[in-house]
């Protein structure tokens, strides 16, 4: 299709985000679409600016990976007035803005947390289990949702308890630092049965911290995290990580298809195109998954 699409990307704060950008570009190239990416460096105001400038440039469609759920009404209205369809990628916005975008291609981050929680409940099978949680950035909606989802997931099991919860800012370094202090605070780690991290990067850091403290992640301490970035599969292959829930970086592919169908045939897509939240464990041939993922730009 011969069109120009502007993508207001949040930034490049993690490997997953980089992969999403890379994959989106590749998907655009496959479809011969001119794809303009504006990097907002984690700031909503920059995203709004970017959307305005896309409108000013007269692009054919706008993709938006919203950094927050609220505050898009007026700028999306401008896009609507300019008759430019908007597709949300990866995160949803506040329900009040439903009629302002064409469709949202996202995963359900509450659901992701829930999958992780349910896996843990199933794995410990009734044994008492103290969980420490590495949260994402305070205030980030993904962090809030993954926390909520996990709590929902373990709600039914009174044997599984979250004993400590701190933010690791979604980063490896902070994940490691926070895990180190968890280990100290929980009697050298002997009281910790499982670690839940809101993303894999923090978990990779936490695994290092456990190893340095003489603990055996993957066996003594269970791990479950979210995103499914290549490095966690390496850890799984080495038996140091147990489970991860996939968040696919290919949100743009379905979005392009929806836009093309909409532009060419007028097909109105469903309001929500949900991506799969697939659970991977050591049983899923982690090395093969690693190989398949390692060149995706993570």
């Amino acid at each position, binding site marked *: 299709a011969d069109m120009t699409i502007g993508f207001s990307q949040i930034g*490049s*704060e993690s490997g997953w985000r980089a992969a999403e950008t890379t994959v989106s570009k590749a998907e655009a190239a496959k479809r011969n679409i001119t794809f303009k990416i504006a990097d907002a460096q984690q700031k909503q105001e920059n995203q709004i600016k970017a959307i305005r400038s896309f409108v000013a440039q007269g692009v054919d469609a706008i993709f938006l990976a919203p950094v927050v759920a609220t505050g898009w009404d007026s700028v999306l209205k401008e896009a609507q007035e300019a008759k430019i369809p908007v597709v949300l990628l990866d995160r949803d916005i506040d329900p009040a803005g439903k009629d302002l975008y064409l469709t949202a291609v996202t995963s359900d981050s509450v659901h992701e947390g829930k999958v992780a929680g349910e896996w843990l409940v199933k794995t410990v099978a009734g044994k008492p289990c103290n969980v420490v949680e590495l949260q994402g950035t305070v205030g980030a909606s993904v962090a809030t949702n993954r926390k909520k989802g996990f709590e929902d997931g373990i709600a039914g099991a009174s044997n599984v308890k979250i004993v400590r919860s701190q933010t690791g800012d979604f*980063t490896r370094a902070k994940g490691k*630092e926070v895990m180190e202090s968890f280990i100290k605070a929980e009697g050298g780690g002997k009281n910790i049965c499982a670690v839940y991290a809101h993303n894999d*990067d923090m978990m990779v850091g936490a695994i290092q911290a456990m190893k340095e*403290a003489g603990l055996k992640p993957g066996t003594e301490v269970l791990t479950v995290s979210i995103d499914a970035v290549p*490095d966690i599969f390496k850890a799984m292959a080495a038996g140091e990580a147990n489970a991860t829930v996939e968040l696919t970086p290919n949100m743009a592919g379905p979005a392009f298809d929806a836009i093309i169908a909409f532009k060419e045939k007028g097909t109105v897509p469903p309001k929500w195109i949900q991506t799969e939240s697939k659970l991977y464990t050591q049983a899923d041939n982690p090395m093969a998954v690693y190989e398949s993922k390692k060149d995706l730009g993570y």
Partner: protein
Amino acid sequence: MAVRLPRIGTAQIVALGLILVANWIVSPQFFDIRVQDGRLFGSLIDVFNRGAPVALLSIGMVLVIAMRGIDLSVGAVMAICGAIAASLADSHSLPVVLAAALGAGLLCGLWNGLLVAVLGIQPIVATLILMVAGRGIAQLITEGRIVTFTSPDLAFLGGGSVLGLPTPVVLTLGMMALTLLLVRGTALGLMIEATGGNPRASALAGIGTRLITVAVYVWSGLCAALAGIVASADILGADANNAGLWLELDAILAVVIGGTSLFGGRFSILLAVVGAFIIQAMNTGILLSGFPPETNLVVKAVVVLTVLLAQSPRLGGHLAGLGVLFSRSKSGGKRR
């Protein structure tokens, strides 16, 4: 005569002590130290180990600030050098890796120094340029991914230990000693303080203020490079997106807690490093306390303010005033 405490550094050392005690209160095992794989292991060690990058940054930053400058780019330089180190680690020998990473830091510092000293751009904007672009350069090197490595040599710089002390702590102490030797063993320290205190007078007294300015930024770049190497070595990978993010603020905070004025002049490298450990002690304490993370910043704000108020010249003046009153009333008592 009232007994006077040594003025320099008392406040900082007391502050560090108090925070450590507070940590011990929120976490009774805080001072427990055991040996694990030939390396000391415990929360107290964590404070120094985790504080190492900011301490390294503050060693360079304190010199820059003493010259009436500021270096906002150190976080980005950390990311660049960490990225270089991590991407070369598995294909090159450690000396090559270190030379490349430190060389990059040196170049970054040179760039800052030239902008400030030769083009006459105000330091905060001059270094802002590299703060913005530098992060981009780091991401360019890693292409936005987390580049991991397995080289045990480089890993040793982050996770190894020398005589039981974690390598980052040893590197920090080494860098501090080297810097002290360079600025206090020569007249550079005096010249930096003079230039920071009164640039015009110093230039008229024949001090090569430009050269020193450039040198100081270069040193800051080197310190940042070392911090970046340590940060990469610690997580066995380079996270160009997040390495050193906002650490420039921590480094500046450390310098100021260490008693160096942002308007230049007198400086103390030692106390800047103590300042860095004060910040880390506070962070570690917050992590150990088990408070919900939403409260982190409020706790941090309160602690920073308290430490500063305790250092305030005014408050010191009031205390000294009390001392004078006290001694006066005593001698007055004798006379009558």
